[in-house]
């Protein structure tokens, strides 16, 4: 077979950028992930849960910082590769997990997910079979409507007929038949065989992460590790979706979400280190359906709110804080006492999607507003 792992994949693009979307399901508490700095009202309404001022990792002279559990991410911030967005969210005011997640993943009250529409309508060549993966068990709404999207739990998903014996001869003969095909399927088949070859090489070799990166032993970190391998193998991966669940902290919030923050931070830092220079072509967006009530409740937790947090890592993003933490006085809060949404999440996504080749398709990706 003529296909070797070294050529350039023409159709699905060795030059392709990859966008990784991490969804923190359950509504992560923005005021804990990214606590305000120098805000006495915060400590008044969060007597137990407020992050002590001295522990907050400062972001220049911004009026918010990073939770100390994000120490690994803090290094990335200092390297200029992390953007922190406080008080960000959607215009959903139902405070329902289901509606708010749906709205944010669809990109408005529209059909299909924004990542799915991005893949379908972005400029350039049609997506390849491996252009989008959801790491997990089910297809997330954000990828709905994608021209190709695969739910993947392990690398085996991609190989041909792995359950029932080898397919080398079939691949060889298909390479021969499609090699003589003069239709548009000819080049598509060549790309497909090459991508397969690269995935199978990955499976065979199972190389350790690069640059001394160490991933934790949990499904989130493992998902990121798989994503990094696929990105490095240049199989045409353009979009990855994965979830980190369990942020719905109505009681005992600190015990509940501190380990999650560590997991998020360490996972992303390992991914960042693993990919090294390739991070120039990779952007990771961390988002959640809403933030939580400003005042803590009587069971040391917080209830559903509005403005939350987004984090953006990599790409050509510069380390900074996008927007600012609003004051937390009564007159400024919305609804039953929630952080107002100062930045629409789509305003954070649009420039990123443009960088990833959205071209003239923004009206299809975000049809409303």
């Amino acid at each position, binding site marked *: 077979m003529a296909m070797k792992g070294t050529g350039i994949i023409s*159709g*699905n693009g060795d030059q392709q950028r990859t966008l990784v979307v991490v969804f923190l399901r359950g509504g992560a508490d923005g005021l804990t992930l990214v606590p305000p700095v120098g805000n006495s009202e915060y400590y008044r309404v969060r007597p137990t849960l407020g992050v002590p001022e001295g522990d907050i990792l400062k972001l220049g002279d911004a009026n918010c910082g990073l939770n100390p559990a994000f120490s690994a991410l803090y290094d990335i911030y200092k390297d200029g590769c992390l953007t922190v967005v406080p008080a960000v969210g959607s215009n959903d005011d139902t405070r329902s997990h289901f509606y708010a997640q749906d709205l944010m993943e*669809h990109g408005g*009250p*529209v*059909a*299909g*997910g924004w990542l*799915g*529409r991005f893949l*379908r*309508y972005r400029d350039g060549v*049609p*997506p*390849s*079979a*491996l*252009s989008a993966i959801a790491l997990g068990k089910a*297809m997330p*709404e954000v990828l*709905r*409507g*994608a*021209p*190709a*999207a*695969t*739910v993947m739990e392990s690398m085996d998903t*991609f190989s*041909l*007929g792995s*359950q*029932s*014996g080898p*397919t080398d*001869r*079939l691949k060889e*003969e*298909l390479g*021969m*038949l*499609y090699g*003589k*095909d003069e*239709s*548009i*399927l*000819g080049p*598509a*088949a060549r790309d*497909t065989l090459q*991508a*397969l070859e690269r995935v199978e090489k990955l499976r065979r070799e199972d190389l350790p992460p690069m640059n001394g990166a160490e991933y934790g032993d949990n499904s989130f970190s493992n998902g990121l590790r798989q994503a990094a391998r696929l990105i490095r193998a240049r199989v045409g991966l353009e979009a990855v979706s994965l979830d980190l669940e369990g942020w719905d902290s109505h009681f005992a919030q600190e015990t509940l979400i501190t380990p999650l923050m560590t997991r998020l931070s360490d996972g992303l830092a390992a991914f960042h280190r693993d990919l090294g220079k390739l991070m120039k072509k990779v952007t990771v967006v961390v988002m959640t359906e809403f933030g939580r009530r400003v005042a803590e409740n009587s069971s040391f937790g917080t209830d559903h709110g509005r403005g939350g947090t987004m984090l953006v890592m990599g790409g050509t993003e510069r380390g900074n804080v996008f927007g600012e933490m609003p004051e937390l006085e009564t007159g400024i809060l919305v609804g039953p006492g929630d952080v107002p949404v100062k930045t629409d999440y789509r305003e954070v996504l649009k420039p990123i999607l443009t960088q990833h080749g959205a071209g003239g398709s923004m009206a*299809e990706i975000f*049809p409303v507003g």
Partner: protein
Amino acid sequence: MKQRESDEVSRRHFLRATAGLALFSTSSCERVEDWLGLGPKEGPVVPPSGEGIDLISHVLNRTTFGPTPLEYARVKGLADTEEDAVAAFLDEQLNPDELEDKRAQRAVRRFEAIHAPLAEMYEYKEAFLLEQLTRATLVRATRSKRQLFEIMAHFWSDHLNIDVSKKECRWLKAADDREVVRKHALGKFSDLVRASALSPAMLWYLDGRENRMRDSSEKPNENYARELLELHTLGVGGGYTQKDVMEVARCFSGWTVRDKGRFYKGRVEFHSEAHDDGSKVVLGHEIASGGGEKDLDDVLEIVCEHPSTARHLAEKLCIRFLADEPSKASIDATAKVFSESGGDLCKTLRSVFETDEFLNGARGQKLKRPFEFIVSALRGTRAKVSSEMDLVDYLIRMGHAPFQYPTPDGYPDVASPWTGTLLWRWHFAIALSRNDVSKEIKINQDELIEKAGGVAGLAASLLGRIPSKEELAAMERTGESLALLLASPGFQWR
């Protein structure tokens, strides 16, 4: 309540079935046998024997979800010449109500949710409704004898696209499929468009429900009006202006769909107080003030009879049945019949099938979309499918799950957007031939080969022509003829 309704459903089906029986007793014995499930005597079937795709295979490729060995033989037996045989076949297909289809109907009956009255749709979990609708769609495409009807149902599902993931479409699309798409799939175009305009799912999908002008401060919601002109009727460049879009939106203002009340949810209503009752001008036609709900009919008459609509629909039908870039002559001829017949879809289709491009043009030059690929593989291999959900996984991977296209233009019907789907086509071809798709999907490869008189015969029945020397040699070398055939370039086209 629930029980009574399902009894009614089965009674309706029973009546339909007996009607079929009455009709049936007048037709030929061969079909009686077929109807009774005895089938024609199954000996070896003579597969296509030409070097290129023969006319019968070509017609089956284009007007059905793929030939089956038995259907090929049956059509061949309809007349002495290929030309007469396909003419007789198309006559049958263009009169679907007279085609007995009991087995497919019985297979679909078990999806009770999609037969429920509108208000009851809300009682189902939306994921369950979508599952039932999707499975029913796969069952019909695979097993219905009214293949052209099913192809047209697909065509209209794209033309009048509704994505179930938008708001209440997740409950209402099943009713749209039944009352709009399937009810008028081979009827009159204007009836279809009217049903769609007043479909609860469409009123949600394109925001018609929010198009209200209770006073001069309110602006009409143009979304449906724009897509009606741009996609459903005149087409881009069809000669309408932004002003026409706004005027059409004014005409439709006041039509809405109930979103509250247990028994009224989903009901379509006209609210005269939310209707802009002033005079309008649509595409040069004056619509007098005071028309109220009649404005909608005036608009639909204007747009359905517009010459751009005939041309737009003719072009889309020609793209479906003839080529990604059909000839101007074919489009013109089709548009002429569409206009002259007042949008009679059967007559229009007949004219498509009479074009020189259809009968004598290039064959095997339309790429099967993923849904068509999967269904044609199931049909060609006579697969026994007892659960369809594993097929849906493949469709999602290939971006072609029914009723899940996000924007109003529907899944594309030309080759280029689908070239990234080869990996999963191969995956499916191998899994199907090795009986690895799931426990619920099984084929009998040995029997297929035996009935076709060998692997070359099997290849011929799947490709509509005898296999080339390269194809034959490749089949032999792999030792997995069927997997290779289904994955090969030849089987990707129709």
